[in-house]
């Protein structure tokens, strides 16, 4: 067939199999029975999609149904409390806000720098660069709770030993979302055509000047979208923070480096566990708040992407 020595290429094999099957079908069964089977299959597919969508709707609807009665601005002003009437999310929301701010401050420079290195400087042949890439891919899929253990062992205790404070939570969440930021930034940087780099270098710019003044500005919308996605993920993560002591009832506004802290998803979990009358409703209201913030963030990301996407 082609010039390949004996080995039939993958494409050819698939094409041949598909052709064989299609021919058998065309020459085989009666059209009547086949049409019914086809419809049935298509129907099953639609049902599958439907189930997924119903599941999504059920989750959202349930949260709204249980929580909307309890919604109100008082949730933002009231403190953590075991009493359903007095319970609010003030400390949790502030805690989450601080956490997100710190995550952005740490994850963006480190993540974008790593992405720049891997895309612009690293020689792909070298084993250590391939090891770095493999590590990033793997870290992207490590369970969140393991990051919590890491944070507990190395940041709250161990070498950094800052204690189970908000900063430890921020560093842990940063490590958690760093692979996401790196991967998204790499894609954005890769999308900038090589001709732009060549044009800049041909003028006598250095490699870094080219990256800083041409590549990064051009990749910025993609990078920002990736950062927002990463922050969205960090916002809803409770598991690692459980290991860092965020589960405790915190009734004072958090200090970054001292004392306890809590976060929105953790407090929601805390409230949801309680059997007292009215607590599930408070938890559900918290879920609504959390989902609303996420919706806003993701809408912003989509708007950003549509507005600034560069069509090369």
């Amino acid at each position: 067939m082609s010039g390949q020595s004996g080995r039939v290429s993958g494409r050819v094999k698939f094409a041949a199999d598909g052709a064989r099957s299609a021919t058998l079908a065309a020459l085989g069964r009666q059209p009547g029975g086949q049409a019914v089977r086809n419809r049935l299959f298509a129907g099953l597919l639609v049902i599958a999609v439907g189930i997924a969508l119903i599941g999504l709707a059920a989750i959202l609807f349930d949260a709204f149904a249980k929580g909307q009665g309890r919604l109100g601005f008082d949730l933002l002003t009231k403190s953590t409390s075991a009493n359903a009437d007095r319970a609010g999310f003030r400390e949790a929301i502030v805690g989450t806000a601080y956490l997100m701010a710190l995550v952005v401050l740490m994850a963006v420079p480190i993540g974008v720098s790593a992405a720049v290195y891997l895309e612009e400087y690293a020689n792909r042949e070298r084993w250590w660069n391939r090891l770095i890439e493999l590590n990033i891919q793997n870290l992207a899929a490590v369970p969140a709770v393991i990051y919590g253990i890491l944070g507990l062992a190395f940041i709250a205790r161990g070498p950094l030993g800052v204690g189970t404070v908000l900063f430890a939570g921020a560093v842990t969440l940063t490590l958690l979302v760093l692979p996401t930021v790196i991967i998204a930034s790499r894609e954005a940087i890769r999308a900038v055509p090589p001709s732009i780099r060549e044009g800049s270098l041909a003028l006598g710019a250095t490699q870094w000047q080219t990256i800083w003044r041409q590549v990064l500005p051009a990749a910025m919308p993609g990078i920002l979208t990736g950062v927002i996605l990463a922050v969205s993920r960090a916002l809803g993560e409770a598991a690692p923070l459980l290991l860092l002591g965020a589960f405790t009832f915190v009734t004072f506004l958090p200090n970054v480096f001292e004392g306890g802290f809590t976060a929105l998803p953790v407090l929601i979990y805390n409230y949801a566990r309680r059997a007292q009358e009215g607590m599930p409703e408070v938890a559900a209201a918290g879920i609504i708040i959390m989902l609303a913030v996420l919706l806003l963030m993701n809408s912003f990301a989509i708007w950003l992407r549509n507005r600034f996407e560069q069509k090369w």
Partner: protein
Amino acid sequence: MADGTTKQVRDHPEISVRPNERERGPIERREKTFELRDVSVHYGGSPAVKDVTMDIYRRNITALIGPSGCGKSTLLRCLNRMNDLIPSARVDGQILYQGIDLYGPKVDPVQVRKLIGMVFQKPNPFPKSIYDNIAFGPRTLGMKGEMDEIVENALRRAALWDEVKDRLGDNAYGMSGGQQQRLCIARAIAVDPDVVLMDEPCSALDPVSTFKIEDLMLELKEHYSIVIVTHNMQQAARVSDMTAFLTVEMTSDEKNRWGQVVEYDDTDKIFTNPADSRTEDYVSGRVG
């Protein structure tokens, strides 16, 4: 020209030779900008171009012509060390620029590219405004001077000023292909180079834009030495002072192919009375 008007020098696009454009004195007395001695380029182990020995003269337009695959672009990219960007590329032989070994140990490719600029086959303006495209080079290189003036001068020299002077803030991607290429030329000359290399600058453009750029080259020749790669023979005949014809050589089993200079001479001679029969076959359209 300095006042922005373009000079109409062409009557019709046939193979014709205009001696009044070529008067640069006898070759032996021309000033040398580049001296190439036994230059070869290999990518990985495979040769791309071999044994090139030629001199390129100051403020001449030197054309490299030949069939595809003969290494013209590869050779061009050696002159501003753009081949450094390809890890597997290896350049042998000697290339002197103004008497200095371009590949010497202490020579910095970045500095080289400030002096020897390049315009690419497909116009590649930056995703910025027209003004910022031109200003990028001078700003990045830390050139002194009033930026508005530098931009205007570059655009005037590239015969683009009148067309864009009222819309310098517009995105460069809104321009036509021909305008974009002239923008790239303006961008290249804004950093005040000595040499401008052009890699098939008109092959992605329509004929009208092509003629505009050919006129432009003839004007730019007053200030810069130009080396152009082109697969359009008529273009080489129209604009260049010197022409090098390269052809593809290959090993007997056809596994390796590389380019070699067959003939390099005054453009008149190459097109009217070439010394080598292969050159004659190519320029008369019998081959290639």
